[in-house]
C-alpha cells in the first residue's frame, strides 16, 4: 500500500497546472446560470477542449487523452485549486457520457461526444417529474411509438441547465402495462424541437439553474434511444453510482474549498471555529483518500456499487458544513455577496440532488448493512 504519485501523473499534473495558471479567467466569468454567463462558460469549454483538457479521461478520438483515473483525479485537483470556472457541460460530460460509453452505439458515440466535448452542445438532465422525485420510477411522461421514432409527452422538472442548454436526456414510460421499473426507455431530445416548452425556475440564488420542461408530441428519432426500449431503468442505474460518486464531485473540489477555508481562518487571525476548520480539512482529505482507495479497487478489477452512496452523503454534508464554517468566520461580512455566499447556496442543494441523502442512507442500510426493507 502506498500513496506515491506515479511519474506520468506528476508530469500531467504539472502540465495542467501551468496551463490553468495562465488561462483561468480573472476576474471570474459571470454567473453560469445567466444568458451572458452561460455563453461565457461555453466559450471556456471550447478553450479547454482546444487545449485537450475538456475530457481528459475520454478516448482520444472523441477529444480526450485516454487519461487514467489517477490522472483525471490529479487534473480535477489542479482545476479546482486554480479556481477554474463551473463546468457548464457537466451533465453531459460526466453523466450522459458514462452512460453512452456503457450502452451507446458506435454511431451515437461518434455523433454525440465530439460536440459535447467542445461545448457546442450543452446537455440538461431530465429525470424528475412533479410526481417523481426520490421515487424516480414513478415517472409518467410517455414515449409513444411513431414512424421512425417516438413521440414524447409529459412534464419534467428540476432539470439542471435546461434554461440555456441545447439538448436533454431522461427516462420515459414507453409501456404503460409493464411493471414500474420495466417499460421505461432512456431517450435524448432536442430542447428546441417543436412541442418543447422550457420554463426556467429561479433557484435559491435567484438564477435559473434549472427549469421545467413541457413536452407535447415531441418527435425523437430511433437513433436517440440509448440501450433497448424498455431497458431504460437498468441503463440509467448502471451509471447512477458514477453520478453519486467519483465523476460528479471529485475530491479536488473539496480539498480546494478546505484549503481556502484554512486560509480564511488564518487571515481572520482568531481561534474562532478552529476545530470545525480542522474537521473540514480532515473530511476533505478523507474523501480524497477514500477515492484513491476506490480507484485502486477499480483498477484491480472491482466495480462501484452501493458504496457510492457513502460518498454522496459524505461529500454533500461536508460541503454544507465547510461553507457554514466559512460564513461563521466572516462574521457580519458573511451576508455580503461573494464567493462564500455563492458556494454556500450551491452546497445547500447537495444533500438533495443525485438522490436525496435519505434515499442514500436507506441504500447504505439495506445494501451494505443488510437491514430489512
Amino acid at each position, binding site marked *: 500500500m502506498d500513496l506515491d504519485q506515479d511519474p506520468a501523473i506528476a508530469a500531467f499534473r504539472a502540465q495542467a497546472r501551468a496551463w490553468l495558471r495562465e488561462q483561468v479567467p480573472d476576474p471570474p466569468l459571470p454567473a453560469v446560470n445567466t444568458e451572458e454567463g452561460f455563453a461565457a462558460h461555453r466559450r471556456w469549454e471550447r478553450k479547454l477542449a482546444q487545449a485537450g483538457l475538456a475530457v481528459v479521461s475520454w478516448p482520444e478520438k472523441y477529444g480526450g487523452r485516454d487519461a487514467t483515473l489517477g490522472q483525471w483525479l490529479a487534473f480535477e485537483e489542479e482545476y479546482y485549486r486554480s479556481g477554474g470556472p463551473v463546468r457548464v457541460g457537466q451533465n453531459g460530460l460526466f453523466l450522459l457520457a458514462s452512460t453512452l460509453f456503457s450502452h451507446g452505439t458506435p454511431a451515437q458515440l461518434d455523433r454525440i461526444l465530439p460536440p459535447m466535448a467542445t461545448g457546442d452542445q450543452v446537455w440538461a438532465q431530465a429525470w424528475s417529474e412533479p410526481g417523481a422525485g426520490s421515487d424516480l420510477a414513478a415517472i409518467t411522461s410517455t414515449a409513444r411509438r411513431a414512424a421512425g421514432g417516438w413521440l414524447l409527452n409529459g412534464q419534467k422538472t428540476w432539470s439542471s441547465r435546461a434554461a440555456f442548454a441545447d439538448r436533454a436526456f431522461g427516462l420515459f414510460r414507453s409501456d404503460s402495462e409493464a411493471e414500474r421499473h420495466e417499460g421505461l426507455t432512456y431517450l435524448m431530445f432536442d430542447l428546441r424541437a417543436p412541442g418543447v416548452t422550457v420554463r426556467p425556475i429561479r433557484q435559491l440564488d435567484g438564477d435559473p439553474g434549472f427549469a421545467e420542461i413541457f413536452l407535447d408530441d415531441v418527435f425523437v428519432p430511433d437513433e436517440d434511444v440509448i440501450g433497448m426500449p424498455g431497458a431504460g431503468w437498468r441503463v440509467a442505474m448502471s451509471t447512477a453510482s458514477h453520478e453519486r460518486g467519483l465523476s460528479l464531485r471529485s475530491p479536488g473540489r473539496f480539498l480546494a474549498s478546505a484549503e481556502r477555508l484554512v486560509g480564511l481562518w488564518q487571515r481572520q487571525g482568531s481561534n474562532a471555529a478552529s476545530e470545525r*476548520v*480542522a474537521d473540514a480539512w480532515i473530511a476533505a482529505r478523507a474523501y480524497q483518500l477514500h477515492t484513491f482507495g476506490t480507484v485502486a479497487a477499480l483498477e484491480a478489477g472491482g466495480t462501484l456499487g452501493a458504496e457510492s452512496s457513502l460518498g454522496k452523503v459524505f461529500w454533500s454534508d461536508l460541503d454544507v458544513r465547510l461553507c457554514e464554517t466559512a460564513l461563521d468566520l466572516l462574521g457580519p461580512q458573511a451576508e455580503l455577496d461573494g464567493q462564500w455566499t455563492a458556494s454556500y447556496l450551491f452546497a445547500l442543494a447537495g444533500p438533495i440532488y443525485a438522490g436525496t441523502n435519505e434515499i442514500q442512507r436507506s441504500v447504505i442500510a439495506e445494501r451494505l448493512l443488510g437491514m430489512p426493507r
Partner: protein
Amino acid sequence: MRFMLTAEQRRFAATLDELLSRADVPAAARAWADGDRGPGLAIWAALARVGVTSLAEHAEPADLVVACEELGRHPVPGPLAESLAAVPALLGGLPSSRARELLAHISSGTAIATAAFPPQVPLALDADIAQVVILSENNKIFLAQPVGTFDSMDPSRKLFAVRQTEVLAADADAVAAGVRHGTLASAALLLGAGRGLLDAAVRHARTREQFGRPVGAFQAVKHALADVLIGIEFARPLLYAAAVAVGAGQATAARDISAARVACADAARLAAAVALQVHGAIGYTRECDVSLWLAKVRALSAVWGSQAEHRAVVLAALTEPKTGPWS
C-alpha cells in the same frame, strides 16, 4: 499509487478475526475486568504465535494498524497500543544492548510492555501484568514500577501511577517514535471498536422485533446505522494514509496521524452512541457485549492526545509554510 491493502494484509486481518472469534474475547475481557487475567493472557500468547507482537519491529505500520483494528473490534483487553506499538517503537530507536534485549522479549511475546508518556498518557495501563514498564518524561526514558492504582471508567482498564527505577536513555527521537506509534495504534483500536459496535448494533437491529417487524426496518434506525458506517469508512483511509506516512518517514506524518486519530475517535464515538441507542435498555447493561466497547471508546479517546490537541496539530501543519495541504 496503489492505495489498498495487499492480499496478504487482508488474509492477515481475516486470520486474526478468525482466531479472535474462536477465542471468546468478550468472556476474556470480563474476566480481565474481574481480576482474572488468565484467559486474556492466553489470547495474547495466541496473538504472539501469529506474529502480532513483533509487527512494530518487523513489519510495516500498515500491518500494525490492520492488526489493531481487529484487536479493537473484538475487543482484546490489555496494553495493546503500548506493548504492540509505542514501547517497541521507542526501544527500536535506542542503540543500547539493554533496549535490544527488552525489545526481543516484547517481540517474541515473552514480555508484555506498558508505558506512561505524561502528559498525554499519564498512567500506565495494566502495569501489574507487564514485565516491561516504561516511563518517558521530558525526552528521558526510564524503566519504572507501579506505585498506585486507579480504576478506569472501562473496567477492563487498570491504570497505574509509576515511578522510575532505572534510567534507560535520553533520546527525543525515540520518545517521538513511541508516541507516534502509540497514537497511531490507538486510532486503529478506536476504529476497530467502532466496527465492533456497528456489527453488534446491526445484528441486534436485524433480529429484535417491535411492532411486528425488526427494528432495523425502521428508517430512523437505518439512517443512524448508515451514518455510523459512513464515519468508519471515511476514517479508515486516513488511518491507512497515516500508517503509510509513518512507514515512509514523511514530513506529514504528525499531521496525518492526528487527522486519523480525530476521525477514528469521532467514528467510534458515534458508533458507541448509536449502538447503545439501537440496543435500548439491554445495551445499558454489563451483560450485553456493547458495554465492553462503550467505556473503552471514551477511555481510549482521552489518552494519546485529546481530540482538540490533534485538531490543533492538523491546523498547525496546514498553516506552516513548509508542508502545505497538497503535499
